[in-house]
């Protein structure tokens, strides 16, 4: 099966579910990159380019939502979550308006555009906002189901999407529920808790670990907030060591969210794999994952070190 970027799955999902006339899509001069142009081709009368003005886009989205619209607002993750952060906080989250912020080009795998465009803090920033639901999808099917779930849910949602084509993890029969993690591989010695593209890398790491005699469970946490507390505690009880894996800064993201749950409910050893308080840089996605220690082999090595 070919590789599909989650941003592409997003654009296709918008077009697929776009017959709902309440849906309005806003973009900030990046519709060919965020893939909202896929929706625009089908429903041009409900797609609005807001220009290179992300703060205005978020507040316009809020205003539309007060009039009963289900608003999708898209730009790159860095501009959505950080440039327009306070607009999201005060005009979307505080009044709990029905706006879905679908932020593409998250993480290092943006590639050659480099550090200014590689958002590594969005999960932490968005997770800190009351009323915000935070989702980070790993593949085409999961993204499609997440968009449908976001349409059906009344309230603010942040969905983190990637630029890079990725392999499928889930099948057509995949059931998505906001707030419910998914075990994608069973194991008994360690649980790899991953989100986004790191689900694929963790599955490969589990293969490497199996060769070394380590049975690794892999859990896909597509909803960072509200996080699946029950599943995390169950995994901690059953496998002991928890290893979080994310294409995001180590502060405040998936690892932080997992540690908050476990330290309060079932204290255990947690190893956090992610970007270590650094900015990104230009390079190919593969070279970047290698440089920042996020390849399957590097994940496996860190698990072995943590087990020792």
């Amino acid at each position: 099966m070919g590789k599909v970027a989650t941003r592409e799955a997003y654009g296709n999902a918008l077009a697929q579910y776009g017959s709902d006339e309440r849906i309005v899509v806003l973009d900030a001069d990046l519709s060919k990159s965020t893939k909202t142009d896929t929706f625009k081709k089908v429903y041009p009368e409900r797609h609005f380019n807001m220009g290179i003005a992300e703060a205005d886009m978020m507040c316009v989205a809020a205003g539309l939502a007060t009039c009963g619209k289900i608003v999708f607002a898209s730009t790159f993750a860095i501009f959505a979550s950080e440039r327009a952060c306070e607009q999201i906080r005060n005009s979307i989250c505080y009044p709990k308006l029905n706006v879905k912020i679908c932020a593409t080009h998250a993480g290092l795998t943006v590639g050659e555009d480099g550090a200014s465009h590689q958002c590594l803090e969005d999960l932490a920033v968005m997770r800190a906002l009351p009323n915000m639901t935070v989702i980070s999808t790993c593949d085409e099917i999961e993204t499609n189901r997440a968009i449908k779930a976001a349409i059906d849910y009344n309230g603010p949602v942040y969905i983190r999407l990637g630029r890079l084509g990725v392999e499928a993890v889930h099948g057509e029969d995949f059931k998505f529920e906001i707030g419910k993690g998914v075990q994608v591989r069973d194991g008994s010695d360690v649980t790899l808790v991953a989100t986004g593209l790191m689900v694929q890398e963790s599955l490969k790491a589990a293969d490497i670990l199996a060769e070394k005699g380590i049975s690794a469970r892999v859990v896909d946490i597509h909803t960072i907030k509200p996080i699946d507390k029950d599943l995390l505690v169950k995994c901690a009880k059953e496998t002991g060591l928890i290893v979080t894996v994310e294409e995001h800064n180590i502060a405040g993201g998936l690892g932080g969210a997992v540690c908050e749950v476990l330290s309060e409910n079932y204290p255990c050893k947690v190893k956090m794999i992610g970007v270590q308080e650094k900015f990104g840089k230009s390079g190919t996605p593969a070279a970047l994952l290698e440089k920042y220690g996020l390849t399957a082999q590097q994940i496996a090595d860190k698990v072995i070190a943590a087990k020792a």
Partner: protein
Amino acid sequence: MDKLRLLELQKQATIIRKYIIDEVFSANSGHPGGSLSCTDIFTTLYFEEMRVDPKNPKWADRDRFVLSKGHCAPALYATLACKGFFPEADLNTFRRIDSYLEGHPSMNYVPGCDMSTGSLGQGISTAVGMALAGKIDKKDYRVYSILGDGELEEGLVWEAAMSAAHYKLDNLCAFVDYNGLQIDGKITDVMNPESISDKFRAFGWNVIDTDGHDIEGLKAAMELAKRMKGKPTMVVCHCHKGHGVSFMEDNYGWHGKAPNQEQRDQAIAELDAKLAEIEAEIAKVKEA
């Protein structure tokens, strides 16, 4: 506008001003200066212009209002209470822990409040979204918003100005409360946003300058805005901060300060005198 109607509106504005003083006095904090400055705009909007139903605050076809200068919540609350959205007796709970009347307005708490505001620049941008929704749905409701002149220093205002003109939102009519003062002093000293009218005109808006305390002038501007096709309207309202209370007028020290008991009593006495004057005139007109 006939003489009697004008006097009734002036009376209403004076009643709103009294409530503003008492809201800020009872909370011992809040923003009296800017609230008194935009009171006549509020009065004209809610008692002469806007299509709203206090019994059905979420009516889908209502005109919308966004207080972009959210710190002037005392004026919004007093207006909504006088209009019948909630009891006037609740106004003295302003800013208290158990009150729905937050320091800055929340749409989820206050009946008749269409948008939560307080962070400057965001309100006008959300109003653009409401106007755009009206265009998408081919509805005839109008969207109104009041901005501060100091607020124009926020870059977001100009992003919103661009998008409103770009999408030809002639169902949007905004007002700048141009009183020339902000927290730290004169707007021209702090960070000069002038020429306000020229700037909005350059951004593609229909711009009308008027005396912000002249109810007939304000009403005429709202009528002109309704007739304008293809452009949003900015009514640049030349106002006086603290208008109606002698010692607060044109004094930036009263931007965000509550009066003490003596100051409150003096302000209320001045406004009561104004009320008596208007009532005497009303009686005279009715006799004639």
